[in-house]
């Protein structure tokens, strides 16, 4: 078998080629995570649909134009997009660099960007609550807080997961389970980025256009 054929043995695994190592279980682990993400995507799709039908349900409470601020939302978008880039660099380090230094550097950078995003989002929410735009005031606000909050919850889980991975890199090192979990975390992280792009365009941009 030529080198190309070898590389294609596990096309879903973004890891160095090791012709001696058949990674069937690893392939399952990554594939199963893709399936989970499909299920999670359905969850977000439904929340988007609910949000769309609730746009008019403001019931006298503040609507999109009053509570959304394009500045912070744009910075949040930039933070999350940069974190996708840094995680991309971490994935390259995982594949190409046997040492942990670069990998850890890029993971920490991703984590900091993610935490920055979360901090800004919490600040946004606090500002809205200060304007008395709380989720119990109208159907629209409920839908907004649950959709964006669900994404924020996912980012929090992703950040906790990243902390766990950093601890594992420090204590266990890079065994194949750590590698597989980093691949899964990267899928999760990029997925959340895509969801955020949808939130930015559907929730914030459209809300401010109206």
């Amino acid at each position, binding site marked *: 078998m030529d080198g190309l054929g070898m590389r294609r043995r596990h096309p879903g695994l973004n890891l160095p080629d090791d012709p001696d190592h058949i990674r069937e279980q690893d392939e399952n682990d990554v594939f199963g995570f893709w399936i989970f993400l499909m299920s999670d995507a*359905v969850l977000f799709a439904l929340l988007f649909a609910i949000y769309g039908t609730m746009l008019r*349900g403001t019931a006298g409470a503040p609507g999109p134009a009053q509570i959304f601020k394009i500045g912070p939302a744009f910075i949040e978008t930039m933070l999350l997009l940069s974190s996708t880039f840094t995680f991309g660099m971490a994935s390259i380090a995982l594949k190409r660099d046997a040492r942990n230094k670069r990998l850890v550097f890029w993971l920490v950078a991703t984590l900091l960007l993610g935490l920055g995003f979360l901090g800004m989002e919490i600040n946004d929410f606090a500002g809205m609550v200060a304007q008395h735009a709380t989720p119990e005031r109208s159907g629209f606000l409920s839908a907004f807080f649950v959709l964006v909050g669900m994404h924020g919850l996912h980012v929090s889980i992703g950040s906790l997961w990243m902390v766990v991975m950093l601890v594992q890199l420090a204590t*266990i090192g890079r065994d194949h389970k750590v590698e597989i979990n980093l691949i899964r975390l990267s899928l999760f992280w990029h997925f959340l980025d895509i969801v955020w792009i949808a939130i930015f365009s559907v929730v914030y941009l459209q809300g401010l256009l109206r």
Partner: protein
Amino acid sequence: MTEPGIWHFLLGNLSWHALPFVRAWRDPSVSEVIGAAAAAIVVLGAVALFVVITRFGKWRYLWSEWVISLDHKKIGIMYIILAGIMLTRALIEAVLMRTQQAVAINASGVVGPNHFAQLFSTHGTIMIFFMAMPFLTGLINYVMPLQIGARDMAFPYLNSVGLWLTVSGALLMMVSLVVGQFSTGGWSGYPPFTELSFNPGPGPDYWIWAVTLSSIGSTTVGINIACTLYKMRAPGMAWMRMPLFCWTALCTAILMIFAMPPLTVATLLLAADRYAGMHFFTVGHGGNMMNYVNLFWLFGHPEVYILILPAFGVYSEVISAFSSKELYGYTSLVVATAAIAVLSFTVWLHHFFTMGQSADINAFFGIATMTIGVPTGVKIYDWIWTMFRGRVRFTPPMLLSIAFMMTFVLGGFTGIILATPPLDFMFHNTLFLVAHFHNMLIGGLLYGLLAGYMYWFPKAFGFRLNEAWGRISVCCWVGGFYLAFMPLYVLGAAGLARRTQEIFDPAFRPWLIVALCGALVLFAALISLFVQLYVSIRDRDHNRVPVGDPWDARGLEWSIAAPPPEWNFVTIPHVGNRDAFYWRKRNQGAYRPADHYRDIELPKDTACGVIIGLAAGVCGFGLVWHIWWMAVLCLAVIVATVILRAFERDVTRIIPAARVEAVDRQWLAQAEAAQPTPREREQSAENQGLAQWMA
């Protein structure tokens, strides 16, 4: 009493009044006494179970052999045991409801309106989420990996988590009998009735958390089954060589992956309304209950096919085995299964034709609904042609399959009636609908699950089930169904609304009494099922089929010992065609020792699954009663368990080759010594699980 003190912190909204015994003491009406008696049965049952297990010193055995096991076979069996327990409760509730309607004609009957509403809510919730789902999940869990030549599911640990989440949901259902009350909102839990303003008690919260646990559990099951089928088929097991049961399992799994999230979203948003004062489905404040109805049925309709497809798979296996014929029209059955799975997402609106959409939309969904009849009809013809000129044996599973074909077609016809929007405006919300979906679920799903249970039981436990009691049970299931539900068609067409606690037209009385008799016959069917199990266990030494192929069947699951060793296959088989084992045994390929016996790696048992599942259940209980510390603590336990498990590296164990060889050679010696059984004597003690086949 109500001052916010330490007791309120510790116990939330719990009070003495939550206990049905206290309620029955204060108000000794028949309805309350029945509630207290049901609670007493649950408590006494739990205590009796505890005493029996302690008396026989079986705690350690249960814990280490079953509870923490990651073996897909044991997990499958535990799912089916759960289904059996829950079936018993929900069937008793059904008898009680039929009794109520038969006697409450211009009278108040035996249970009050609130109690009656709890009965139909728990009956539906249990039958769907804690009887049907665990039963089919258990069957798939047990059989599917054996059929595709795998040693386990793709994610054994996730499998255990899914099981214990489901068990926790079922435990919440049981606890709701003893502490507090269950929802009165039906199995579908429509708001705004289930919102805080109309239903402030713990009932809807019990429903929300029990269903949410089951829903999350089923999502994990779907991911697991799909990944197993995609990735772990034995070499040579191409898609079109899979047994049909695997195809139905795959389609069901895909439906679970896509259709369970809508349910999770629906219940969680309802919880957001009830716990955080939000306004998703409330009246006013911009809430819109139609969103709930759409979400629920976006789950609910695919759910119908999640339930029925595995049953179709079972019938395909059973009819082919007991007709000694290759499955007729395999390809068309596969295509029909996939078509049903796809179409199932295009019909959810027929559950609420009357709720205000335009006639055009109703017409679209009505036609889409009728379209599903086409692939289903294809299947019925395929099964009939499979039997045609076959060597048909009327074993209990086969009888169930034949009864299914008759009954299901009947239910399909009434389904066409309901799928026609103008007719649905007449029949919706009447007993006609109740009769229709019981026609599909008993005559389709339950017969299939029971057929699967009887068909694969010898494989799982190594001895046949008693056929005589099996026939008695089948007769009762079939006769009971017709007696109980045909009258409901009549009553529904005459305009009797479903979920009616008291009836004011004496003309309905005879039909209701016939239906009650039917319910009692169905209860007798359940009892005879248990008697069959008891008799079979008692006589197990006469009915052993250790060689593992009692029916001269076709799939790989029959090519190994009964019960199978925990590693399933000594060597992963290579598959060259459909019906792999049938072909192999006719070509001198079966019952041969392996060329080399190798060490086998299996997943190591772990308590993490049961810890996560039970913590989720206790968390649900804390949420129901607003015991916040309990909910937060359990959530922390779950997160900690997940993280700690991620640090565990010692997750597999090795079965040494010597042990594999010893067990395998012992089985081969049994196969060597066994007398091949011809088909006409397969239901006698002569059957040792080695089939006699014509060369």
